């Protein structure tokens, strides 16, 4: 662990070498999410809501999605950009070192400037939690925690898929962004606003619905939800396990391209 912090510190220091660049990048990453949420708020204002959802519920979901996404973007950048390691041969160097590969890949990159977006998502989260109309109890507190952690696990699983995918095809990374960036944007709304097949895909194949829609129903007591709706974020743990298997399989198959 201390090794990990050391490598993070090195990346932070190197980023501070270009201070102006760092500040601009930080602002940019925060502005992006801000404008996306602002657009949603403008639309909600124009149309008087979406489905039977209220503005603060959307803000909460945006916070949850964006927290998981930006946290993984910051700490999991090594996996996110893993395809570059395959291209430039860094993976071969990592393989000969006597440390866990996943750990080394995670150490290989870190983007501190994403902290702008992370702080912003925490603000959305807090605002959402304070303002939504929920009768809080301990279990519901656990549910909201599960939603946040579930979002984190889910986006981590997605970068694992992305990294595993690059063992077989390096060029298709744009496609993978659909589930990371696309997932963040689409899960800023409750999954039930979408067409059935679309919502089904993002619930049963990639479990976005399990970290936003079902637990939110439970929190808000919408339509007598059973108590296990609150536990659906746990599905992401199984999903993450499957992704790890895929990743390990990819690693075991890996043959260097030489050079």
């Amino acid at each position, binding site marked *: 662990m201390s090794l990990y912090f050391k490598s993070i510190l090195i990346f932070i220091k190197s980023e501070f070498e270009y201070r102006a660049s760092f500040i601009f990048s930080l602002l940019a990453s925060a502005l*992006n999410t801000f404008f996306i949420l602002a657009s949603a708020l403008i639309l909600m204002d124009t149309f008087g809501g979406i489905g039977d959802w209220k503005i603060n519920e959307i803000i909460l979901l945006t916070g949850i999605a964006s927290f998981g996404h930006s946290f993984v973007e910051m700490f999991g950048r090594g996996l996110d950009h893993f395809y570059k390691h395959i291209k430039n041969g860094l993976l071969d160097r990592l393989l000969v070192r006597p440390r866990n590969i996943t750990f080394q890949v995670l150490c290989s990159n870190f983007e501190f400037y994403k902290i702008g977006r992370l702080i912003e998502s925490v603000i959305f989260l807090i605002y959402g939690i304070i303002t939504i109309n929920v009768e809080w109890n301990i279990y519901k507190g656990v549910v909201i925690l599960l939603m946040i952690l579930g979002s984190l696990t889910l986006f981590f699983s997605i970068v694992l898929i992305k990294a595993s995918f690059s063992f077989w095809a390096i060029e298709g990374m744009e496609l993978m962004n659909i589930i990371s960036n696309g997932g963040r944007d689409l899960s800023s709304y409750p999954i039930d606003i*979408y067409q059935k097949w679309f919502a089904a895909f993002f619930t049963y194949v990639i479990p976005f619905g399990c970290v936003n829609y079902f637990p939110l129903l439970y929190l808000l007591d919408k339509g007598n939800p059973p108590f296990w709706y609150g536990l659906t974020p746990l599905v992401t743990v199984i999903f993450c396990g499957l992704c790890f298997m895929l990743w390990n399989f990819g690693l075991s198959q890996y043959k260097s391209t030489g050079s």
Partner: protein
Amino acid sequence: MKPYLSFLKLRISVGLQYRFAAITGIFTQFFWGAMYIFIYEAYYKMGTASPMPWEQLVSYLWIQQAFFALIRFSYNSSDICDSIITGQVVYELVRPFNIYWHWYAQTFAGRLSNVLLRFSPIIIVALLLPDKYALHFPASFASFVLFLLTLILGLFLSISLTMIIYGIMFYTTSSRGIFNIYGIIAEFFAGSTLPILFMPEFFQKLAYMLPFRLIVDLPFRLYIGNISVQEGCISVMLQIIWIVIFVTIGNLIMNNARKKVVSQGG
């Protein structure tokens, strides 16, 4: 003959590589288009009066996806940015070219080729979708001609703006951040994040004062017939004026930077 054949083979394989990227790109654009359409569909189900009729909005969203690479403000040639940061630019500066127009052409080609590879399949499939989700034909022949004209002029305008940022990079060496901030703000006021018609009055006024909407909002709304041909013609003049202004500013910055450029070793 042999060297030419192998050259041809090489070019084809390079082209095929880009084709794979183009196919994934097309798929990606379809996903985003569908996602936005579903989100708007949920809003339109609320039954509130909307500033944009549904068919117009759907067409707007599909054109946006089809010409995505053309209107992406943060697009820049990474070769150029890298050359400024690494100092390679010094070699460019000693060549007997005008660096401004050289880079202008390079960025222009980059964006145009990107679009040419991708836009037609998106347009064709979007036209064939079920009526509710389909791209519709342009409002009239005149508005279609104006759409093409303003789209191309918009590209010139957009690149004139990018050139100014390349110029600024000579002074700051922070390419990533500046390009991203510029991209996000410009895209919002261009009507990419949200069509300008949906915006509150204050933002609409601001958007109309800024040049960015002439790159996205203007051509797209001409296509769907939301802006009259008459207004379109006036806007073309506006586009040309902005282009002249920004090209002049860009040249000034670049020339000034060229005189002061200090290569930081190598």
